[in-house]
Protein backbone atom coordinates (compact mmCIF):
# COMPACT_ATOMS: atom_id res chain seq x y z
CA UNK A 1 0.00 0.00 0.00
CA UNK A 2 1.25 3.43 -0.88
CA UNK A 3 1.44 5.72 2.07
CA UNK A 4 2.72 8.79 0.25
CA UNK A 5 -0.31 9.01 -2.07
CA UNK A 6 -2.06 12.38 -2.04
CA UNK A 7 -5.82 12.28 -1.68
CA UNK A 8 -7.39 13.26 -5.02
CA UNK A 9 -8.29 16.94 -5.01
CA UNK A 10 -11.96 17.59 -5.64
CA UNK A 11 -11.20 19.75 -8.64
CA UNK A 12 -10.50 19.19 -12.33
CA UNK A 13 -7.56 20.69 -14.24
CA UNK A 14 -9.45 23.96 -14.75
CA UNK A 15 -10.46 24.22 -11.13
CA UNK A 16 -14.03 23.01 -11.43
CA UNK A 17 -15.35 20.16 -9.26
CA UNK A 18 -15.40 16.70 -10.85
CA UNK A 19 -18.40 15.67 -12.97
CA UNK A 20 -19.54 19.32 -13.34
CA UNK A 21 -21.64 20.19 -16.37
CA UNK A 22 -19.76 21.75 -19.26
CA UNK A 23 -21.08 24.11 -21.91
CA UNK A 24 -20.53 21.43 -24.54
CA UNK A 25 -22.43 18.93 -22.43
CA UNK A 26 -25.38 21.33 -22.13
CA UNK A 27 -25.39 21.76 -25.89
CA UNK A 28 -25.54 18.01 -26.35
CA UNK A 29 -28.48 17.83 -23.98
CA UNK A 30 -30.32 20.50 -25.98
CA UNK A 31 -29.64 18.57 -29.20
CA UNK A 32 -30.91 15.46 -27.53
CA UNK A 33 -34.28 16.96 -26.65
CA UNK A 34 -34.56 18.63 -30.07
CA UNK A 35 -33.98 15.31 -31.82
CA UNK A 36 -36.56 13.64 -29.64
CA UNK A 37 -39.12 16.35 -30.48
CA UNK A 38 -38.50 16.02 -34.21
CA UNK A 39 -38.93 12.25 -34.17
CA UNK A 40 -42.12 12.54 -32.16
CA UNK A 41 -43.47 15.19 -34.54
CA UNK A 42 -42.77 12.99 -37.56
CA UNK A 43 -44.53 10.06 -35.94
CA UNK A 44 -47.59 12.19 -35.23
CA UNK A 45 -47.44 13.62 -38.73
CA UNK A 46 -47.51 10.10 -40.08
CA UNK A 47 -50.34 8.90 -37.86
CA UNK A 48 -52.54 11.98 -38.34
CA UNK A 49 -53.54 11.45 -41.99
CA UNK A 50 -54.12 7.79 -41.32
CA UNK A 51 -56.53 8.53 -38.50
CA UNK A 52 -58.14 11.29 -40.57
CA UNK A 53 -58.71 8.99 -43.54
CA UNK A 54 -60.21 6.20 -41.49
CA UNK A 55 -62.39 8.61 -39.51
CA UNK A 56 -63.62 10.36 -42.64
CA UNK A 57 -64.40 7.05 -44.36
CA UNK A 58 -66.31 5.66 -41.43
CA UNK A 59 -68.31 8.87 -40.89
CA UNK A 60 -69.30 9.13 -44.54
CA UNK A 61 -70.01 5.43 -44.83
CA UNK A 62 -72.06 5.18 -41.68
CA UNK A 63 -75.58 5.49 -43.21
CA UNK A 64 -74.91 2.58 -45.58
CA UNK A 65 -73.04 0.21 -43.26
CA UNK A 66 -75.05 -2.80 -42.17
CA UNK A 67 -75.00 -6.56 -42.45
CA UNK A 68 -77.48 -6.14 -45.28
CA UNK A 69 -74.93 -4.04 -47.16
CA UNK A 70 -72.50 -6.97 -47.06
CA UNK A 71 -75.03 -9.59 -48.07
CA UNK A 72 -77.07 -7.76 -50.68
CA UNK A 73 -76.07 -7.43 -54.33
CA UNK A 74 -75.81 -4.08 -56.12
CA UNK A 75 -79.21 -2.93 -57.36
CA UNK A 76 -80.72 -0.34 -59.62
CA UNK A 77 -77.71 0.05 -61.91
CA UNK A 78 -75.40 -0.16 -58.87
CA UNK A 79 -76.75 3.01 -57.31
CA UNK A 80 -78.28 1.08 -54.42
CA UNK A 81 -78.03 -2.26 -52.67
CA UNK A 82 -74.92 -3.95 -51.28
CA UNK A 83 -71.61 -5.42 -52.34
CA UNK A 84 -71.99 -9.17 -51.96
CA UNK A 85 -71.09 -9.90 -55.59
CA UNK A 86 -67.81 -8.04 -55.26
CA UNK A 87 -66.99 -9.32 -51.76
CA UNK A 88 -67.44 -12.97 -52.67
CA UNK A 89 -65.54 -12.39 -55.93
CA UNK A 90 -62.56 -11.02 -54.04
CA UNK A 91 -62.65 -13.91 -51.59
CA UNK A 92 -62.59 -16.34 -54.52
CA UNK A 93 -59.75 -14.59 -56.32
CA UNK A 94 -57.60 -14.35 -53.21
CA UNK A 95 -58.29 -17.89 -52.05
CA UNK A 96 -57.48 -19.46 -55.40
CA UNK A 97 -54.39 -17.33 -55.94
CA UNK A 98 -53.03 -18.29 -52.51
CA UNK A 99 -53.89 -21.94 -53.01
CA UNK A 100 -51.59 -21.77 -56.02
CA UNK A 101 -48.90 -19.37 -54.82
CA UNK A 102 -48.44 -20.50 -51.21
CA UNK A 103 -47.35 -24.11 -51.79
CA UNK A 104 -45.17 -23.26 -54.77
CA UNK A 105 -43.63 -20.30 -52.96
CA UNK A 106 -42.91 -22.17 -49.75
CA UNK A 107 -41.42 -25.19 -51.52
CA UNK A 108 -39.29 -23.00 -53.77
CA UNK A 109 -38.07 -21.05 -50.76
CA UNK A 110 -37.16 -24.27 -48.96
CA UNK A 111 -35.18 -25.37 -51.98
CA UNK A 112 -33.38 -22.05 -52.32
CA UNK A 113 -32.60 -21.77 -48.63
CA UNK A 114 -31.88 -25.36 -47.65
CA UNK A 115 -30.67 -27.20 -50.72
CA UNK A 116 -29.32 -24.78 -53.32
CA UNK A 117 -25.56 -24.34 -53.43
CA UNK A 118 -24.05 -20.94 -54.08
CA UNK A 119 -23.71 -21.24 -57.85
CA UNK A 120 -24.19 -18.53 -60.48
CA UNK A 121 -27.44 -20.16 -61.55
CA UNK A 122 -28.91 -19.91 -58.06
CA UNK A 123 -27.65 -16.38 -57.67
CA UNK A 124 -29.54 -15.41 -60.78
CA UNK A 125 -32.68 -17.05 -59.40
CA UNK A 126 -32.25 -15.12 -56.16
CA UNK A 127 -31.81 -11.88 -58.01
CA UNK A 128 -34.88 -12.61 -60.12
CA UNK A 129 -37.01 -13.31 -57.05
CA UNK A 130 -35.94 -10.12 -55.33
CA UNK A 131 -36.58 -8.02 -58.41
CA UNK A 132 -39.89 -9.66 -59.23
CA UNK A 133 -41.10 -8.78 -55.75
CA UNK A 134 -40.67 -5.13 -56.70
CA UNK A 135 -42.37 -5.19 -60.10
CA UNK A 136 -45.42 -2.85 -60.24
CA UNK A 137 -48.76 -4.63 -60.29
CA UNK A 138 -49.73 -3.19 -63.68
CA UNK A 139 -46.87 -5.15 -65.21
CA UNK A 140 -48.14 -8.33 -63.64
CA UNK A 141 -51.57 -7.41 -64.99
CA UNK A 142 -50.28 -7.15 -68.54
CA UNK A 143 -48.33 -10.36 -68.15
CA UNK A 144 -51.48 -12.10 -66.91
CA UNK A 145 -53.43 -10.74 -69.84
CA UNK A 146 -50.93 -12.11 -72.31
CA UNK A 147 -50.11 -15.38 -70.58
CA UNK A 148 -53.37 -16.57 -69.03
CA UNK A 149 -56.15 -14.77 -70.89
CA UNK A 150 -54.74 -15.19 -74.39
CA UNK A 151 -51.87 -17.69 -74.55
CA UNK A 152 -53.34 -20.21 -72.11
CA UNK A 153 -56.84 -19.46 -73.45
CA UNK A 154 -58.47 -19.09 -70.04
CA UNK A 155 -60.19 -15.99 -71.38
CA UNK A 156 -61.27 -13.20 -69.04
CA UNK A 157 -62.08 -15.36 -66.05
CA UNK A 158 -61.72 -16.05 -62.35
CA UNK A 159 -59.00 -18.51 -63.30
CA UNK A 160 -56.91 -16.01 -65.26
CA UNK A 161 -57.31 -13.31 -62.62
CA UNK A 162 -56.41 -15.66 -59.75
CA UNK A 163 -53.32 -16.91 -61.53
CA UNK A 164 -52.26 -13.33 -62.21
CA UNK A 165 -52.60 -12.54 -58.51
CA UNK A 166 -50.65 -15.71 -57.76
CA UNK A 167 -47.81 -14.61 -60.03
CA UNK A 168 -47.83 -11.23 -58.30
CA UNK A 169 -47.68 -12.63 -54.76
CA UNK A 170 -45.32 -15.54 -55.46
CA UNK A 171 -41.98 -13.71 -55.28
CA UNK A 172 -42.95 -11.96 -52.06
CA UNK A 173 -44.00 -15.25 -50.51
CA UNK A 174 -40.68 -16.79 -51.54
CA UNK A 175 -38.77 -13.88 -50.04
CA UNK A 176 -40.67 -13.83 -46.75
CA UNK A 177 -40.48 -17.61 -46.41
CA UNK A 178 -36.74 -17.54 -46.97
CA UNK A 179 -36.41 -14.94 -44.27
CA UNK A 180 -38.40 -17.11 -41.87
CA UNK A 181 -36.25 -20.15 -42.72
CA UNK A 182 -33.02 -18.22 -42.34
CA UNK A 183 -34.10 -17.11 -38.87
CA UNK A 184 -33.99 -20.69 -37.58
CA UNK A 185 -30.73 -20.97 -35.61
CA UNK A 186 -27.95 -22.92 -37.35
CA UNK A 187 -27.39 -24.73 -34.07
CA UNK A 188 -30.64 -26.64 -34.60
CA UNK A 189 -29.55 -27.75 -38.05
CA UNK A 190 -26.12 -28.75 -36.72
CA UNK A 191 -27.76 -30.83 -34.04
CA UNK A 192 -29.58 -32.76 -36.74
CA UNK A 193 -26.71 -33.15 -39.17
CA UNK A 194 -24.47 -34.59 -36.50
CA UNK A 195 -26.84 -37.40 -35.63
CA UNK A 196 -27.15 -38.40 -39.26
CA UNK A 197 -30.36 -36.65 -40.24
CA UNK A 198 -30.90 -36.27 -43.97
CA UNK A 199 -31.63 -32.80 -45.26
CA UNK A 200 -35.31 -33.58 -45.57
CA UNK A 201 -35.47 -34.97 -42.02
CA UNK A 202 -33.78 -31.80 -40.80
CA UNK A 203 -36.25 -29.62 -42.65
CA UNK A 204 -39.32 -31.52 -41.59
CA UNK A 205 -38.23 -32.22 -38.05
CA UNK A 206 -36.67 -28.92 -37.08
CA UNK A 207 -36.60 -26.17 -39.67
CA UNK A 208 -40.27 -26.04 -40.67
CA UNK A 209 -41.74 -26.42 -37.17
CA UNK A 210 -39.59 -23.52 -36.00
CA UNK A 211 -40.29 -21.20 -38.89
CA UNK A 212 -43.96 -21.90 -39.48
CA UNK A 213 -45.10 -18.72 -37.72
CA UNK A 214 -42.98 -16.52 -39.94
CA UNK A 215 -43.99 -18.43 -43.06
CA UNK A 216 -47.70 -18.14 -42.30
CA UNK A 217 -47.45 -14.46 -41.43
CA UNK A 218 -45.74 -13.78 -44.74
CA UNK A 219 -48.45 -15.61 -46.62
CA UNK A 220 -51.32 -13.93 -44.77
CA UNK A 221 -49.90 -10.49 -45.46
CA UNK A 222 -50.14 -11.32 -49.15
CA UNK A 223 -53.88 -11.88 -48.70
CA UNK A 224 -54.37 -8.19 -48.05
CA UNK A 225 -52.11 -7.26 -50.93
CA UNK A 226 -53.96 -9.51 -53.38
CA UNK A 227 -57.32 -8.26 -52.15
CA UNK A 228 -56.37 -4.64 -52.56
CA UNK A 229 -54.84 -4.61 -56.04
CA UNK A 230 -57.07 -3.41 -58.89
CA UNK A 231 -55.03 -3.59 -62.05
CA UNK A 232 -54.19 -7.33 -62.09
CA UNK A 233 -57.85 -8.35 -61.83
CA UNK A 234 -59.23 -5.56 -64.01
CA UNK A 235 -57.15 -6.71 -66.98
CA UNK A 236 -57.78 -10.41 -66.59
CA UNK A 237 -61.20 -11.26 -65.26
CA UNK A 238 -63.00 -8.72 -63.11
CA UNK A 239 -65.98 -6.95 -64.65
CA UNK A 240 -68.08 -3.89 -64.00
CA UNK A 241 -71.17 -5.83 -63.09
CA UNK A 242 -72.31 -9.39 -62.88
CA UNK A 243 -75.71 -10.54 -61.72
CA UNK A 244 -75.54 -12.99 -58.83
CA UNK A 245 -77.99 -14.00 -56.15
CA UNK A 246 -78.04 -12.28 -52.79
CA UNK A 247 -75.84 -14.13 -50.31
CA UNK A 248 -75.09 -16.96 -52.74
CA UNK A 249 -71.92 -18.81 -51.77
CA UNK A 250 -70.95 -20.15 -55.19
CA UNK A 251 -71.90 -17.45 -57.66
CA UNK A 252 -68.96 -17.85 -60.05
CA UNK A 253 -67.41 -20.70 -61.99
CA UNK A 254 -63.68 -20.75 -62.72
CA UNK A 255 -64.26 -19.66 -66.32
CA UNK A 256 -66.77 -16.95 -65.38
CA UNK A 257 -65.89 -13.33 -65.07
CA UNK A 258 -66.48 -11.95 -61.60
CA UNK A 259 -66.72 -8.78 -59.60
CA UNK A 260 -64.03 -7.75 -57.13
CA UNK A 261 -64.01 -5.24 -54.28
CA UNK A 262 -61.11 -3.11 -55.44
CA UNK A 263 -62.47 -2.92 -58.97
CA UNK A 264 -65.98 -2.26 -57.67
CA UNK A 265 -64.77 0.70 -55.67
CA UNK A 266 -63.01 2.11 -58.71
CA UNK A 267 -66.15 1.64 -60.81
CA UNK A 268 -68.47 3.21 -58.25
CA UNK A 269 -66.36 6.31 -57.96
CA UNK A 270 -65.68 6.84 -61.65
CA UNK A 271 -68.31 5.14 -63.82
CA UNK A 272 -71.63 5.08 -62.02
CA UNK A 273 -73.77 8.24 -62.05
CA UNK A 274 -76.13 9.06 -59.17
CA UNK A 275 -74.83 6.45 -56.78
CA UNK A 276 -75.99 6.90 -53.20
CA UNK A 277 -73.37 9.02 -51.46
CA UNK A 278 -72.53 6.56 -48.68
CA UNK A 279 -72.09 3.48 -50.86
CA UNK A 280 -68.56 4.05 -52.23
CA UNK A 281 -67.43 5.01 -48.73
CA UNK A 282 -68.96 1.91 -47.28
CA UNK A 283 -67.27 -0.20 -49.94
CA UNK A 284 -63.94 1.37 -49.03
CA UNK A 285 -64.57 0.68 -45.36
CA UNK A 286 -65.31 -2.97 -46.10
CA UNK A 287 -62.12 -3.28 -48.17
CA UNK A 288 -60.06 -1.54 -45.50
CA UNK A 289 -61.77 -3.47 -42.74
CA UNK A 290 -61.10 -6.86 -44.31
CA UNK A 291 -57.45 -5.96 -44.88
CA UNK A 292 -57.09 -4.85 -41.27
CA UNK A 293 -58.85 -7.98 -40.10
CA UNK A 294 -56.49 -10.21 -42.06
CA UNK A 295 -53.43 -8.33 -40.84
CA UNK A 296 -54.67 -8.54 -37.27
CA UNK A 297 -55.12 -12.27 -37.75
CA UNK A 298 -51.53 -12.49 -38.98
CA UNK A 299 -50.25 -10.65 -35.92
CA UNK A 300 -52.39 -12.76 -33.63
CA UNK A 301 -51.12 -15.95 -35.20
CA UNK A 302 -47.56 -14.76 -34.92
CA UNK A 303 -47.92 -13.90 -31.24
CA UNK A 304 -49.61 -17.19 -30.51
CA UNK A 305 -46.95 -19.27 -32.27
CA UNK A 306 -44.15 -17.16 -30.77
CA UNK A 307 -45.36 -17.83 -27.29
CA UNK A 308 -45.16 -21.53 -27.89
CA UNK A 309 -41.51 -21.49 -28.85
CA UNK A 310 -38.59 -20.44 -26.76
CA UNK A 311 -34.92 -20.67 -27.53
Amino acid sequence: MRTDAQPRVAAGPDGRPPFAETAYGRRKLRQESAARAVFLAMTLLMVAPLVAIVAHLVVEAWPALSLEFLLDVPRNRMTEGGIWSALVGTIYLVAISLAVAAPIGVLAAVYLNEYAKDTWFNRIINLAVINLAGVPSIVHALFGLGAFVYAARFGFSVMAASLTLAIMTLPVIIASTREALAAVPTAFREACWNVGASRWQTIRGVVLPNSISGILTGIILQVSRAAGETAPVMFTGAVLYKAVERGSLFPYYLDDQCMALSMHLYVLTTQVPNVAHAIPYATAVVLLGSVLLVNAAAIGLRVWLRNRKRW
Partner: protein
Amino acid sequence: MSAPAASPFAIETRALNLWYGSFQALKGVTVGIRHGQITSLIGPSGCGKTTLLRCFNRVNERYGEVRTTGDIEVLGRNIYAADVSLIELRRSVGMVFQRPNPLPLTVYENVVFALRLHTPGRQLTRPTLDEAVERALTETGLWKDLKDRLRTRATDLQLEQQQKLCIARLLPLRPDVILMDEPCSALDVEGTRAIEDLMAELRGRYTIVIVTHSMAQARRVSDECIFMLLGELVEHRRTAELFLVPQDRRTAEYIEGRYG
Protein backbone atom coordinates in the same frame (compact mmCIF):
# COMPACT_ATOMS: atom_id res chain seq x y z
CA MET B 1 -17.96 -50.50 -28.77
CA SER B 2 -17.26 -53.25 -31.31
CA ALA B 3 -13.52 -52.85 -31.80
CA PRO B 4 -12.19 -53.92 -35.19
CA ALA B 5 -9.15 -56.11 -34.80
CA ALA B 6 -5.79 -54.83 -35.95
CA SER B 7 -5.50 -51.11 -35.45
CA PRO B 8 -5.33 -49.46 -32.03
CA PHE B 9 -6.81 -46.37 -33.64
CA ALA B 10 -10.48 -45.45 -33.90
CA ILE B 11 -9.66 -42.61 -36.26
CA GLU B 12 -6.69 -42.31 -38.58
CA THR B 13 -5.93 -39.60 -41.08
CA ARG B 14 -3.13 -39.55 -43.63
CA ALA B 15 -1.86 -36.38 -45.31
CA LEU B 16 -5.20 -34.69 -44.83
CA ASN B 17 -5.54 -31.35 -46.60
CA LEU B 18 -8.67 -29.23 -46.54
CA TRP B 19 -9.59 -26.04 -48.38
CA TYR B 20 -12.45 -23.63 -47.78
CA GLY B 21 -12.62 -22.14 -51.27
CA SER B 22 -9.01 -21.13 -51.82
CA PHE B 23 -8.08 -20.96 -48.14
CA GLN B 24 -6.22 -24.00 -46.88
CA ALA B 25 -7.39 -24.75 -43.36
CA LEU B 26 -5.68 -28.13 -42.85
CA LYS B 27 -2.19 -28.93 -44.08
CA GLY B 28 -1.03 -32.52 -44.29
CA VAL B 29 -2.53 -33.70 -41.04
CA THR B 30 -1.56 -37.27 -40.21
CA VAL B 31 -2.87 -38.51 -36.91
CA GLY B 32 -4.11 -41.61 -35.14
CA ILE B 33 -6.67 -41.35 -32.38
CA ARG B 34 -6.81 -44.27 -29.99
CA HIS B 35 -9.83 -46.36 -29.17
CA GLY B 36 -11.65 -45.65 -25.97
CA GLN B 37 -9.36 -42.84 -24.93
CA ILE B 38 -9.85 -39.15 -24.52
CA THR B 39 -7.80 -37.11 -26.94
CA SER B 40 -7.67 -33.37 -26.60
CA LEU B 41 -7.06 -30.94 -29.42
CA ILE B 42 -5.44 -27.65 -28.46
CA GLY B 43 -4.09 -24.67 -30.34
CA PRO B 44 -4.71 -20.97 -30.85
CA SER B 45 -7.92 -19.61 -32.39
CA GLY B 46 -8.35 -20.34 -36.07
CA CYS B 47 -5.75 -23.10 -36.24
CA GLY B 48 -8.26 -25.60 -37.60
CA LYS B 49 -9.35 -27.58 -34.54
CA THR B 50 -13.04 -27.38 -35.34
CA THR B 51 -12.32 -28.07 -38.99
CA LEU B 52 -10.37 -31.24 -38.18
CA LEU B 53 -13.11 -32.39 -35.82
CA ARG B 54 -15.75 -31.89 -38.50
CA CYS B 55 -13.72 -34.01 -40.90
CA PHE B 56 -14.19 -37.08 -38.76
CA ASN B 57 -17.88 -37.34 -39.63
CA ARG B 58 -17.64 -35.42 -42.90
CA VAL B 59 -20.03 -32.77 -41.65
CA ASN B 60 -17.72 -30.08 -43.04
CA GLU B 61 -19.42 -30.63 -46.35
CA ARG B 62 -22.58 -29.06 -44.97
CA TYR B 63 -20.82 -25.78 -44.22
CA GLY B 64 -20.23 -24.56 -47.74
CA GLU B 65 -17.55 -25.07 -50.34
CA VAL B 66 -15.03 -27.56 -48.97
CA ARG B 67 -12.41 -29.60 -50.77
CA THR B 68 -10.49 -32.39 -49.10
CA THR B 69 -7.55 -34.57 -50.11
CA GLY B 70 -5.90 -37.38 -48.19
CA ASP B 71 -7.37 -40.32 -46.29
CA ILE B 72 -9.54 -40.58 -43.23
CA GLU B 73 -10.30 -43.94 -41.72
CA VAL B 74 -12.82 -44.39 -38.98
CA LEU B 75 -12.89 -47.82 -37.37
CA GLY B 76 -10.58 -48.98 -40.12
CA ARG B 77 -12.92 -47.90 -42.88
CA ASN B 78 -12.09 -45.23 -45.43
CA ILE B 79 -14.94 -42.77 -44.96
CA TYR B 80 -14.51 -41.39 -48.46
CA ALA B 81 -15.22 -44.81 -49.99
CA ALA B 82 -18.06 -44.67 -52.47
CA ASP B 83 -20.37 -46.95 -50.52
CA VAL B 84 -20.03 -45.15 -47.19
CA SER B 85 -23.37 -43.80 -46.01
CA LEU B 86 -22.98 -40.39 -44.40
CA ILE B 87 -26.06 -41.10 -42.37
CA GLU B 88 -24.54 -44.24 -40.87
CA LEU B 89 -21.18 -42.52 -40.41
CA ARG B 90 -22.70 -39.66 -38.47
CA ARG B 91 -24.75 -42.07 -36.47
CA SER B 92 -21.56 -43.62 -35.20
CA VAL B 93 -19.57 -40.38 -34.90
CA GLY B 94 -21.63 -37.79 -33.00
CA MET B 95 -20.80 -34.25 -32.05
CA VAL B 96 -21.33 -31.95 -29.07
CA PHE B 97 -21.03 -28.19 -29.51
CA GLN B 98 -19.73 -25.13 -27.77
CA ARG B 99 -23.17 -23.78 -26.95
CA PRO B 100 -25.51 -26.52 -25.79
CA ASN B 101 -27.98 -26.91 -28.62
CA PRO B 102 -30.88 -29.04 -27.49
CA LEU B 103 -33.77 -28.90 -29.91
CA PRO B 104 -36.80 -26.89 -28.79
CA LEU B 105 -38.63 -30.06 -27.82
CA THR B 106 -39.20 -31.89 -24.55
CA VAL B 107 -36.33 -33.64 -22.79
CA TYR B 108 -37.83 -36.97 -23.79
CA GLU B 109 -38.17 -36.04 -27.45
CA ASN B 110 -34.62 -34.73 -27.55
CA VAL B 111 -33.23 -38.05 -26.38
CA VAL B 112 -35.26 -40.13 -28.82
CA PHE B 113 -34.93 -37.64 -31.68
CA ALA B 114 -31.99 -39.39 -33.33
CA LEU B 115 -33.49 -42.80 -32.71
CA ARG B 116 -36.61 -41.74 -34.57
CA LEU B 117 -34.47 -40.55 -37.48
CA HIS B 118 -32.83 -43.92 -37.89
CA THR B 119 -35.61 -46.37 -37.15
CA PRO B 120 -38.79 -47.04 -39.10
CA GLY B 121 -41.75 -45.77 -37.08
CA ARG B 122 -43.42 -49.07 -36.31
CA GLN B 123 -40.35 -50.53 -34.64
CA LEU B 124 -40.38 -47.73 -32.11
CA THR B 125 -42.73 -48.96 -29.45
CA ARG B 126 -43.29 -46.92 -26.32
CA PRO B 127 -41.30 -49.33 -24.12
CA THR B 128 -38.32 -49.21 -26.52
CA LEU B 129 -38.29 -45.44 -26.41
CA ASP B 130 -38.81 -45.28 -22.65
CA GLU B 131 -35.95 -47.67 -22.12
CA ALA B 132 -33.65 -45.72 -24.44
CA VAL B 133 -34.42 -42.50 -22.58
CA GLU B 134 -33.83 -44.01 -19.17
CA ARG B 135 -30.60 -45.62 -20.26
CA ALA B 136 -29.18 -42.52 -21.96
CA LEU B 137 -30.13 -40.23 -19.08
CA THR B 138 -28.76 -42.65 -16.53
CA GLU B 139 -25.50 -42.95 -18.42
CA THR B 140 -25.10 -39.15 -18.42
CA GLY B 141 -26.16 -38.78 -14.80
CA LEU B 142 -29.32 -36.87 -15.61
CA TRP B 143 -31.89 -39.50 -14.73
CA LYS B 144 -32.12 -38.65 -11.04
CA ASP B 145 -32.78 -34.96 -11.72
CA LEU B 146 -34.92 -35.26 -14.80
CA LYS B 147 -36.93 -38.43 -14.46
CA ASP B 148 -39.95 -36.45 -13.32
CA ARG B 149 -39.39 -33.65 -15.80
CA LEU B 150 -39.20 -35.56 -19.05
CA ARG B 151 -41.95 -33.38 -20.47
CA THR B 152 -40.26 -30.04 -19.78
CA ARG B 153 -38.73 -28.19 -22.64
CA ALA B 154 -35.06 -28.99 -23.00
CA THR B 155 -34.31 -25.33 -23.67
CA ASP B 156 -35.61 -24.47 -20.17
CA LEU B 157 -33.01 -26.63 -18.40
CA GLN B 158 -29.84 -25.23 -16.85
CA LEU B 159 -26.99 -24.94 -19.34
CA GLU B 160 -25.06 -27.76 -17.71
CA GLN B 161 -28.06 -30.08 -17.96
CA GLN B 162 -28.60 -28.98 -21.55
CA GLN B 163 -25.05 -29.90 -22.43
CA LYS B 164 -25.35 -33.28 -20.75
CA LEU B 165 -28.58 -33.79 -22.64
CA CYS B 166 -26.74 -33.06 -25.87
CA ILE B 167 -24.37 -35.88 -25.00
CA ALA B 168 -27.26 -38.09 -23.89
CA ARG B 169 -29.09 -37.71 -27.16
CA LEU B 170 -26.15 -39.28 -29.03
CA LEU B 171 -26.10 -42.40 -26.89
CA PRO B 172 -29.25 -44.22 -28.09
CA LEU B 173 -27.52 -44.47 -31.48
CA ARG B 174 -24.68 -46.41 -29.82
CA PRO B 175 -21.95 -44.22 -31.29
CA ASP B 176 -18.31 -45.24 -31.34
CA VAL B 177 -16.83 -41.77 -31.33
CA ILE B 178 -18.01 -38.62 -29.59
CA LEU B 179 -16.53 -35.36 -30.83
CA MET B 180 -16.74 -32.40 -28.46
CA ASP B 181 -16.06 -28.88 -29.66
CA GLU B 182 -15.23 -26.78 -26.58
CA PRO B 183 -18.09 -28.40 -24.68
CA CYS B 184 -17.49 -26.39 -21.51
CA SER B 185 -16.84 -22.92 -22.79
CA ALA B 186 -20.41 -21.78 -22.16
CA LEU B 187 -20.51 -23.34 -18.69
CA ASP B 188 -19.50 -22.12 -15.24
CA VAL B 189 -16.97 -23.88 -13.00
CA GLU B 190 -19.54 -26.31 -11.61
CA GLY B 191 -20.87 -27.14 -15.05
CA THR B 192 -17.37 -27.65 -16.41
CA ARG B 193 -16.55 -30.02 -13.59
CA ALA B 194 -19.75 -31.95 -14.17
CA ILE B 195 -19.03 -32.40 -17.87
CA GLU B 196 -15.44 -33.40 -17.18
CA ASP B 197 -16.61 -35.98 -14.65
CA LEU B 198 -19.04 -37.29 -17.21
CA MET B 199 -16.26 -37.60 -19.79
CA ALA B 200 -14.19 -39.61 -17.33
CA GLU B 201 -17.25 -41.77 -16.82
CA LEU B 202 -17.69 -42.37 -20.55
CA ARG B 203 -13.99 -43.01 -21.10
CA GLY B 204 -13.29 -46.54 -22.31
CA ARG B 205 -16.74 -47.07 -23.74
CA TYR B 206 -16.45 -44.32 -26.32
CA THR B 207 -13.57 -42.75 -28.16
CA ILE B 208 -13.71 -39.07 -27.23
CA VAL B 209 -12.04 -36.18 -29.01
CA ILE B 210 -12.33 -32.85 -27.24
CA VAL B 211 -11.34 -29.44 -28.56
CA THR B 212 -10.50 -27.08 -25.75
CA HIS B 213 -9.09 -23.63 -25.26
CA SER B 214 -8.07 -24.45 -21.74
CA MET B 215 -4.75 -26.21 -21.39
CA ALA B 216 -5.63 -26.96 -17.80
CA GLN B 217 -8.69 -28.81 -19.01
CA ALA B 218 -6.66 -30.74 -21.58
CA ARG B 219 -4.33 -31.83 -18.80
CA ARG B 220 -7.15 -32.82 -16.49
CA VAL B 221 -9.26 -34.87 -18.86
CA SER B 222 -7.21 -36.24 -21.72
CA ASP B 223 -5.00 -39.26 -22.23
CA GLU B 224 -3.39 -37.88 -25.37
CA CYS B 225 -3.05 -34.37 -26.58
CA ILE B 226 -2.68 -32.88 -30.05
CA PHE B 227 -1.27 -29.41 -30.57
CA MET B 228 -2.16 -27.67 -33.82
CA LEU B 229 -0.91 -24.45 -35.33
CA LEU B 230 -1.99 -22.74 -38.56
CA GLY B 231 -3.65 -25.86 -39.94
CA GLU B 232 -0.72 -28.15 -39.16
CA LEU B 233 -0.41 -30.83 -36.56
CA VAL B 234 2.66 -29.84 -34.55
CA GLU B 235 2.80 -32.40 -31.82
CA HIS B 236 0.81 -35.42 -30.66
CA ARG B 237 1.81 -37.29 -27.53
CA ARG B 238 0.63 -38.55 -24.18
CA THR B 239 -0.85 -35.52 -22.44
CA ALA B 240 1.46 -35.74 -19.45
CA GLU B 241 4.55 -35.86 -21.67
CA LEU B 242 3.38 -33.11 -23.98
CA PHE B 243 2.98 -30.68 -21.12
CA LEU B 244 6.08 -31.84 -19.26
CA VAL B 245 8.61 -32.19 -22.06
CA PRO B 246 7.26 -30.76 -25.29
CA GLN B 247 9.44 -31.84 -28.21
CA ASP B 248 8.65 -28.96 -30.52
CA ARG B 249 9.69 -25.39 -29.79
CA ARG B 250 6.30 -24.08 -30.90
CA THR B 251 4.47 -26.39 -28.50
CA ALA B 252 6.70 -25.25 -25.69
CA GLU B 253 6.02 -21.63 -26.50
CA TYR B 254 2.28 -22.20 -26.67
CA ILE B 255 2.01 -23.98 -23.35
CA GLU B 256 4.17 -21.30 -21.78
CA GLY B 257 1.56 -18.85 -23.00
CA ARG B 258 3.67 -16.93 -25.52
CA TYR B 259 0.78 -16.93 -27.98
CA GLY B 260 -2.80 -18.18 -28.42
